[in-house]
């Protein structure tokens, strides 16, 4: 024990030493900032904060509200751990792999390891500091990773999840980001992905399904799963996602102005169309429109507009968002029931299917009138764009499925992927994290026991822990 603790100390210390010593600081040498525009930079600062917010606490609550109350903290911990881990991985090597100068259109290279050469000066071709661009993209990587957890909550081991996060962002996310946005081969084919239809939603949706299949079903699935424990948290989460999505989509213009405004408008409208259509579908087919449905439809619309946000007209966004609800409703209600996979929080049904529809829809509705830097789609006389988009989709699906499968199989050689039956039964909050989310038993509000001499034995007793010594 004593030994293990020492090892930790050595590890931590050397890590920190490394941190400030190993890399040259010349990155910051030239702080000219010639081309930095304050308005654009402010928009990216805000967008970065918004993406952080849609992730934590947004995604965490969106997911947490839908799980049983004994797994809420565990669900949040998957998100929180990805948040902190991927942020660091991104800074250390992820950004370099995804947005480095690149090696043959395939791999970003090592130039930006540890955010070397990533400083306050404007990024090439943009009017915003390189550093905020890098952080903004890092938050994309982090939330994308965390979205996957929705497929495997209530059963995957916490340590496995952390290792998975590190590997996944490195060998699945970073390559796809490089290929699509970093100047890699896919972008040269002409595929359009404004804010992450393939890179974010298809990757995460397909990876979640793959992970759900590899990790296996919850023991309670399908006949005894717990109903969502708190729909108000779910709603809050959904709306935080919506709020943050403005930073996600309109921020992807990488500047303030007309294009950001277009993306903002299409986002709001596609989300609304998605929400409304889902409400109407439920009303027509089930007589009762639900809150879960309305919010899920909104998210489906937002997912679908993501790749298209800066390429399509406002009216097209109605169609994209509205039809997203139709396909996602089908996925959740028909496909899932038929195939019986346990994608716990419907990541595949919403992000996967919605993302695929969005990517294809971009090929249908894109218009150079909206964005000259884009392309025309099917409706504007260019059916080939649909094919190009289909290639993007295919690449993303394959990369996600194979990458996730391989990562999990490799991990499973070293450790079991899922918690034990007993842990699953007692709930992961207590069994993995030793905490209860809610301590609301009124009886605990009782006065001090009259026998303070035996604090540990007394009812409801609490004792100051002996600190590090006791372990």
């Amino acid at each position, binding site marked *: 024990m004593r030994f293990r603790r020492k090892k930790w100390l050595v590890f931590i210390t050397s890590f920190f030493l490394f941190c400030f010593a190993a890399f040259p600081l010349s990155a910051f040498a030239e702080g000219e900032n010639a081309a930095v525009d304050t308005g654009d930079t402010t928009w990216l600062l805000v967008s970065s904060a918004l993406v952080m917010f849609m992730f934590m606490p947004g995604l965490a609550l969106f997911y947490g509200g*839908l799980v049983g109350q004994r797994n809420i903290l565990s669900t949040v911990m998957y998100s929180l751990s990805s948040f902190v881990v991927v942020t660091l991985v991104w800074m250390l090597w992820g950004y370099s792999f995804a947005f480095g100068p690149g090696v043959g259109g395939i791999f970003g290279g090592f130039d930006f390891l540890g955010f070397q050469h990533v400083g306050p000066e404007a990024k090439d071709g943009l009017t915003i500091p390189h550093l905020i661009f890098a952080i903004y993209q890092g938050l994309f990587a982090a939330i994308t990773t965390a979205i996957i957890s929705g497929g495997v909550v209530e059963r995957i081991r916490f340590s496995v999840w952390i290792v998975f996060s590190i590997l996944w962002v490195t060998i699945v996310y970073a390559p796809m980001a490089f290929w699509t946005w970093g100047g890699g081969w896919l972008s040269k084919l002409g595929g359009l992905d404004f804010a992450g239809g393939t890179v974010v939603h298809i990757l995460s949706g397909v990876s979640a399904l793959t992970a759900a299949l590899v990790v296996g079903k919850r023991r309670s699935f*399908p006949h005894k*799963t717990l*109903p*969502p424990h708190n729909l108000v948290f779910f709603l809050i989460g959904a709306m935080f996602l919506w709020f943050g999505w403005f930073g996600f989509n309109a921020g992807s213009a990488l500047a303030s102005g007309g294009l950001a405004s277009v993306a903002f408008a299409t986002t709001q409208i596609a989300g609304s169309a998605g929400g409304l259509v889902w409400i109407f579908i439920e009303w027509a087919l*089930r007589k*009762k429109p*639900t809150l*879960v*449905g309305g919010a*899920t439809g909104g998210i489906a619309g937002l997912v679908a507009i993501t790749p298209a946000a800066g390429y399509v007209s406002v009216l097209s966004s109605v169609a994209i968002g509205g039809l997203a609800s139709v396909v996602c*409703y089908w996925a*959740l*209600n*028909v496909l*899932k*029931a038929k195939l019986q996979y346990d994608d716990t929080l*419907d990541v595949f*049904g919403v992000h996967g299917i919605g993302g695929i529809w969005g990517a294809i829809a971009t090929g249908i509705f894109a218009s150079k009138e909206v964005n000259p830097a884009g392309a025309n789609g099917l409706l504007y006389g260019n059916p080939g764009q649909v094919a190009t988009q289909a290639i993007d989709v295919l690449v993303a699906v394959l990369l996600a499925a194979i990458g996730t499968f391989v990562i999990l199989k490799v991990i499973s050689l070293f450790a079991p992927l899922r918690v034990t039956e007993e842990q699953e039964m007692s709930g992961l909050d207590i069994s993995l994290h030793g905490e209860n989310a809610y301590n609301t038993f009124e009886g605990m509000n009782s006065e001090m026991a009259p026998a303070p001499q035996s604090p540990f034995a007394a009812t409801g007793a609490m004792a100051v822990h002996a600190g590090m010594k006791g372990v």
Partner: protein
Amino acid sequence: MKLLTIIIRPEKLSSVTAALHEIGINGMTISDVRGQGTQKGVRTIYRGVEYQTDFIMKNKIETAVSDDRYEQAIEAVMDAARTGEVGDGKIFVTDVVDAVRIRTGERGDSVL
């Protein structure tokens, strides 16, 4: 003395307590419980998955009454809690062998 354990629909709780007050029974202890019986549970649907719960919200009233009053109490509860639909609930009567008022130490019927 008898202990009545009364299971009713939550929406009838205030009618029942009012009816008991009317006949002079003011002391009682109430809890949120879940019932199972002939009545079927609600079905709720989340994202295409139907959750049918057979735990139906009920309220339980426990009230100790003197031997000569308990029939009257049963009448009062029945009048106030009945809807005629399945799920109206039950009353169970058990014997109380002793009762204490903690504040005074009194015992027996004077406790009520």
